[in-house]
């Protein structure tokens, strides 16, 4: 049986990863991810985790090394944040094109400049088109559960793609939370051993990462797109299975008091918890407000999103990153295009919030609702605004 413990979320995640019996990890320190690397190396040093912990000299090499080890047939893990993720950027589409099941935690943090170590989503957003499955955790338990499930999704024979588990830096990574850590037996029962399609072993020599010109390139891109689209089915299955075994189930899009809501807010990551409190407050005042939480960023859950917002008049999309000179925050553009062809869709508002660790109180969420509710002429629909900016 699993046990309920109070742990810093990074430590809980590292414990969860160890329960997955990884063969190899390559991690480079960066705040706020470092505690994952440190705790994993502690587990190896104490003989509790039988894995090669490669103390790489950069995140570029961390990703390169886990690519190499995964290609050799090992179950691999890495974790990073912000600048580290930007340094890995070059390799992310290569990992997915090579169909390597790599699991990576991203302790989401603002990207420089100016340098900032606190939370937002400007690190993961530029990785959107890398061909990685991307999921967002809202609390410590989710970070643990989604990390273990990530291995099973990534390694599924119909998926074979890398997965990033996004965990908000500090707000989530550094919280001490009560989490239920499954037992080794439970994880073993859930997660079968990794069976790779092909490996770098002389018993059956293969060429990986070949060079391709225009004759095959488009086909390879299409194949990758099909692969990530098809992963949807497996993601749903694996999360359901998790639910059946552990009693906590996950969905690509989750809602809170949304069924009869006139006005909805959409969040991704840990801010959903604060938004929930704001919703309760608004409900108390008679406002029919609700919450939509986007857990799965890639592959994008079109059907679930459409279903979740279909009855609302207004939808407030919160973004934790900026698309400079673009049509609004990256999540906003995505939601707008997802709903574009709907005959009936809510008017969509966009707030860019919580950049570089800017605190977001319950009153801030209530404030956004108030503003949008007051916009009777819908003058601000389809536009974006930086919330709480000092001008």
């Amino acid at each position, binding site marked *: 049986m699993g046990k309920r413990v109070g742990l810093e979320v990074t430590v809980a995640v590292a414990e969860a990863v160890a329960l997955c019996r990884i063969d190899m990890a390559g991690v480079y320190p960066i705040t706020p991810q470092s505690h994952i690397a440190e705790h994993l190396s502690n587990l190896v040093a104490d003989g509790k985790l039988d894995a090669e912990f490669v103390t790489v000299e950069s995140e570029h090499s961390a990703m390169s*090394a886990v690519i190499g080890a995964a290609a050799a047939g090992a179950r691999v893990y890495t974790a990073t944040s912000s600048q580290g993720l930007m340094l890995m950027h070059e390799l992310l589409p290569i990992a997915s094109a090579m169909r390597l099941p790599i699991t990576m935690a991203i302790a989401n943090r603002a990207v420089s400049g100016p340098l900032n170590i606190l939370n937002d989503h400007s690190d993961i957003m530029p990785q959107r088109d890398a061909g990685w499955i991307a999921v967002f955790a809202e609390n410590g338990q989710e970070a643990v559960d989604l990390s273990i499930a990530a291995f099973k999704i990534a390694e599924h024979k119909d998926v074979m793609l890398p997965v990033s588990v996004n965990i908000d830096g500090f707000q989530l990574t550094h919280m001490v939370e009560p989490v239920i850590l499954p037992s080794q037996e439970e994880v073993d029962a859930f997660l079968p051993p990794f069976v790779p399609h092909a490996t770098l072993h002389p018993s059956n020599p293969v060429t990986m990462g070949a060079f391709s010109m225009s004759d*095959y390139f488009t086909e390879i891109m299409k194949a990758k797109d099909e692969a990530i689209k098809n992963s949807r089915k497996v993601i749903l299955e694996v999360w359901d299975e998790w639910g059946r075994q552990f009693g906590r189930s996950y969905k690509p899009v989750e809602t809170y008091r949304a069924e009869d809501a006139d006005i909805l807010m959409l969040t991704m990551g840990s801010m959903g918890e604060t938004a929930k409190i704001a919703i309760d407050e608004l409900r108390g005042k008679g406002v029919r407000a609700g919450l939509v939480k986007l857990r799965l960023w890639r592959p994008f859950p079109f059907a679930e999103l459409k279903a979740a917002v279909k009855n609302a008049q207004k939808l407030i999309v919160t973004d934790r990153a900026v698309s400079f000179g673009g049509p609004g925050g990256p999540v906003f553009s995505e939601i707008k295009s997802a709903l574009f062809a709907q005959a009936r869709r809510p008017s969509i508002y966009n707030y860019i919030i919580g950049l570089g660790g800017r605190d977001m109180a319950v009153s801030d969420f209530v404030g956004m609702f108030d503003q949008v509710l007051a916009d009777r002429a819908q003058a601000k629909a389809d536009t974006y605004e930086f919330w709480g900016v000092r001008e």
Partner: protein
Amino acid sequence: MNIVENFDLFAPRLINKKELFSCGHRACSGCAEVLSVRLMCKALGDDTVVASATGCMEIVSSMFPTTAWRIPWIHVAFENAAAVASGVEAGLKALRKKGKIDDRYIKVVGMAGDGGTMDIGIQALSGAMERGHDMIYVCFDNEAYMNTGIQRSSGTPMGASTTTAPAGKASSGQKTWKKNMPEIMVAHEIPYVATVCPSYPLDFIRKFEKARNIKGPSYIHCFSVCPTGWRSPSETAVSMGRLAVETGVFPLFEVESGHYRMSPDMPKKLKPLRSYFKPQGRFRHLTDAEIDAIQERVTAEFNKLTQKAKFL
């Protein structure tokens, strides 16, 4: 009997007949870099995994859906061959220890050109060597970024004309001395560092065999004549390599646990640099005075090296 001069006689007995790097690759005719890769495979045998950087050797050998590799091979990017190799090594080590693959010794090799090694890849290489992975790293040095059109690298020799450091009215080509990569590797205090040239196939193979038997990191720097980039006749690639060695431009030596040893193939007396420069278009613009200055440096560097080799 001189082995190299009677090579056809000796080769079948001394060199692995099995071709692990097949013909049909797309390298230019007379490419000594691809010859080196082929010899490396012969020396290391089947139980080898290669992680290659982007560059000529990757492009010519892996055009999808064909491959020239009969051993497991992976390419990921330009600057990370050493890091990928270190991951392959760590992965195989873990799987072998846990009994998930058969208990057989596999040598992992990281390889890149001079650009992929000495410039953009030096950090990943330094990291992998410092961490002590059980792997061989090979730099196939053709003294420029050939794959992308003969741009200069830090391995381009002084005075050579390249497309980004061309000779012109106000320039004599490369303005910097070649980075001494083997010495940088020696400074990492790894068990084995060696220089090789495929014009000396037996020395070449012996050094690779030695590196294969070392449990830990080793570095081999391979002088690889590139007729296309050097503007030299393709049929002279092997003799050009010999001239580089005979003039002391590229001395053959090895460093085992810090101890230097010159290869027995090194001549007692060096030939003048001009004999090596003359057939190459990339040096054609150099004046006598410029060649003299380079000659002085080559001699001095060579003497420095032989001094180190004296104190065995």
